[in-house]
């Protein structure tokens, strides 16, 4: 213990308690100051951590598709990304060290307090990180050696193990930060850290909601970065083969990112509910206090995500023979999405001073107040999710000709399910205006269940309807206009920025507390800055992260062999085996 920073500080704190050593509460970092220094270190570390946790999930799934679908291009894709992980792990560790040393030198009091509670978990963390790193080395460098048969399955198991280590590491780190948000009720300002029960502090109120939210968000983030990488490589490709390969890769990344994004709001809802359960004042600060405008910005960003994700799919349908029969519907889907974004981004409850209240003529704007309430917002977001799902469905069906005799009936049932789900969402949205708040909150559950049931039912039916489907022609991979790739880049930038914003919200709702109502922030940076300031810091963090990721991608490209064959035109990612014999559209 004495050799680690945590151990040293724990000893120093012990000595301090005996009056022999004095630990200052805060260190000093030159402009822009302690807060921004720690903020940037934590945020960039988190970006990399999300990347190195999200991409292995992506890789292991891709490898599984390659193994069980007997499709080598997925295996190559998995390996291509695992190679990037090697350098990314170093970057993650470097930024983790910067964060740890920043905390030790700039916030020694806080670090000492946390170390005295969490010291055992810090050792476990280090151990798991060790195993994770060496599992990664085995996973990557053993790729070619363990290539066939049982050896390949063992190799795939290494990928699963890599994910288990990584997730466990994240869960431990999450316990430290969630303890700062939601320390157990028995921990008071005068409670000695040595008296805090470790498991009670570890499994605090917001720990599991954050774990779940981050696991899902990491998959989304990994998919988005994969998409951005593919877009960059597509735009700079010199051959058709390369373009075809990276076009396909971008499609896979986008599908994972947007497909998983659909689930993320439900995890966010769970997290928000637990924050309210833990401390209502904290919940209100988050949703209606000085953070209320952050949700308007979030709505704007998610609107961009939905629009860019759908736009990419619609443009992509241009390279799918048979997709033209769905093209007329896209403008209506666009209308639903735009209206949804407008409603979702309508401000409602927020801090207003007396002059602003007077200017509005009341507590809500007379026009916007109707659209800004949760009934309208929940309705909007659920309809946007349904619309996006419809985009995916049309994309999936674009080049398929059904052969089962009941296909028309099945499609009508699918349509009915869509309509029914939309009606349920709208019904509870309107009904919500006529009931009390507590009843209205319960309606959101019915709306979500209707959407999830519709997605499950439609997908199940679609798999059955498309059994044995014939092809209108193979997807012309690589024949995408460049603007579609810029949509993928915007998706990645937006996801990254959104992560930064949500990180600010999660951390900022502690306000002037290092540890909520246990340890006050008495430094000159105790106040939580407004969104405009936060946005600048977030943007700098994103620039640093993307700059480094760009460098990592470039380094990775130095070692790769040129692509000599593009994905087989007849092996589509989401189609059945009969398409293999379908004629190409070229």
């Amino acid at each position, binding site marked *: 213990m004495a050799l680690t920073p945590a151990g040293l500080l724990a000893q120093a704190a012990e000595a301090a308690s005996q009056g022999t050593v004095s630990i200052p509460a805060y260190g000093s970092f030159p402009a822009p100051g302690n807060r921004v220094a720690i903020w940037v270190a934590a945020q960039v570390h988190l970006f990399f951590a999300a990347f190195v946790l999200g991409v292995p999930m992506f890789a292991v799934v891709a490898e599984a598709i390659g193994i069980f679908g007997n499709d080598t291009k997925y295996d190559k894709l998995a390996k291509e990304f695992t190679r990037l992980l090697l350098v990314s792990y170093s970057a993650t560790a470097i930024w983790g060290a910067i964060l740890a040393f920043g905390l030790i030198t700039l916030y020694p009091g806080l670090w000492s307090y946390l170390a005295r509670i969490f010291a055992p978990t810090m050792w476990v963390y280090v151990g798991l990180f060790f195993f994770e790193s060496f599992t990664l080395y085995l996973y990557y460098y053993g790729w070619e050696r363990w290539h066939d048969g049982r050896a390949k399955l063992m190799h795939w198991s290494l990928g699963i193990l890599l994910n288990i280590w990584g997730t466990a590491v994240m869960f431990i780190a999450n316990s430290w930060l969630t303890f700062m948000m939601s320390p157990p009720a028995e921990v008071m300002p005068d409670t000695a850290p040595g008296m805090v029960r470790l498991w009670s502090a570890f499994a605090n109120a917001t720990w599991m909601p954050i774990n779940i939210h981050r696991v899902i968000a990491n998959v989304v983030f990994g998919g988005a970065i994969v998409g951005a990488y593919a877009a960059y490589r597509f735009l700079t490709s010199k051959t058709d083969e390369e373009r075809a390969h990276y076009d396909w890769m971008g499609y896979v990344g986008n599908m994972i990112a947007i497909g998983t994004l659909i689930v993320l709001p439900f995890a966010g809802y769970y997290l928000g509910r637990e924050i309210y359960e833990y401390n209502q004042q904290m919940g209100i600060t988050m949703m209606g206090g000085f953070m209320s*405008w952050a949700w308007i*910005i979030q709505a704007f960003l998610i609107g961009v995500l939905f629009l860019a994700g759908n736009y990419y799919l619609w443009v992509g349908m241009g390279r799918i023979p048979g997709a033209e029969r769905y093209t007329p519907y896209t403008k209506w889907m666009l209308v639903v999405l735009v209206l949804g974004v407008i409603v979702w981004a309508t401000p409602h409850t927020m*801090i207003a001073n007396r002059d602003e209240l007077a200017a509005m003529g009341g507590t809500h704007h007379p026009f916007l107040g109707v659209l800004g309430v949760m009934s309208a917002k929940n309705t909007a977001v659920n309809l946007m999710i349904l619309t996006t799902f419809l985009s995916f469905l049309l994309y999936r069906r674009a080049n398929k000709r059904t052969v089962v005799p009941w296909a028309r009936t099945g499609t009508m049932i699918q349509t009915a399910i869509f309509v029914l789900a939309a009606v349920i969402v709208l019904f509870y949205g309107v009904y919500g205006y006529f009931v009390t708040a507590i009843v209205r909150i319960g309606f959101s559950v019915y709306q979500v269940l209707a959407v999830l049931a519709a997605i499950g039912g439609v997908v199940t039916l679609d798999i059955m309807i498309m059994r044995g489907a014939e092809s209108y022609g193979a997807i012309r991979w690589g024949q995408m206009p460049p603007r579609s790739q810029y949509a993928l880049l915007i998706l990645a930038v937006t996801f990254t920025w959104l992560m930064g914003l949500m990180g600010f919200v999660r951390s900022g709702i502690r306000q002037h507390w290092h540890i909520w109502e246990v340890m006050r922030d008495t430094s000159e940076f*105790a106040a939580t800055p407004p969104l405009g300031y936060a946005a600048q810091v977030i943007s700098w963090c994103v620039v640093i992260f993307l700059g480094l990721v760009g460098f990592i991608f470039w380094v990775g490209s130095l070692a790769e062999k040129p692509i000599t064959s593009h994905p087989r035109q007849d092996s589509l990612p989401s189609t059945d085996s009969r398409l293999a014999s379908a004629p190409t559209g070229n």
Partner: protein
Amino acid sequence: MWQTNLKILLVVLGTLGLYTWVAGAIPQVASEVPEELTFSDDVTADDLVMAGEQLFAGAGTCTACHGTGTRAPNLLTDHAGEGTIGQRCGTRVSGLDCKAYLRASLTEPAAFVVEGFAEMVFQARAFSDAQIWSLVAFMQAQGGEVTVTSDDMERTDDAAAGTSAPAEPSGDSPLAASQTTDARVLLQENLCLSCHAIDGAGPPLGPNFDDIGSARTADQIRRGILDPNVDAAPGFDAMLGMMPATFGQSLSAIQLEAIVTFLAARK
């Protein structure tokens, strides 16, 4: 090649610039740290109101709920046709003037919950006595007369010093340090009548005081005051835990017996 790279760079930076601009274009609200307040003996009403306004709109995060009209009653504008908070505070609870009502509302949020709203989540323990009084002064100034003075702060400071748990809101009842032995006055000062009805009037949140002597002995009443959360009175199981358990500290023995005798006699 370099043109493509430049385009990509511009798209990335343009997107970041747009988001940064949008976040900077909206109203900028920071979460401030509550300032420690110290007032001299000659503090003016304006000083108190100004400090209270800063707290109300800033670190107190009061506007997160008061002002929306949905989570909590409006304080700065009319609520339910009764005017602003300064206009209606004096008539909210019979027997409590505006100042006492506002202070009790802050320190004991469960005491007077306005119909149609949930209990306030304001945590008085996070604020100093001077901060609480400045908030009271600010709210009085919203259409009413500011009557908070430095004497109020001295009195509650003294009261707090005389209790074993000065930081607890329940130990800061408006006139906790009163020396009166008049049971009726004590019931009023200690906010008992916010939950118990007497003389046929008052909320039915606790047992009615009009005939409590026929249902409970003096010993039971005394135990109920000193340790209220052990046994619920018949029919009030759901209210168990609501009554403060601090009267053993805030009342003198003579005051306690005065209340017990008074209530036990009501048959």
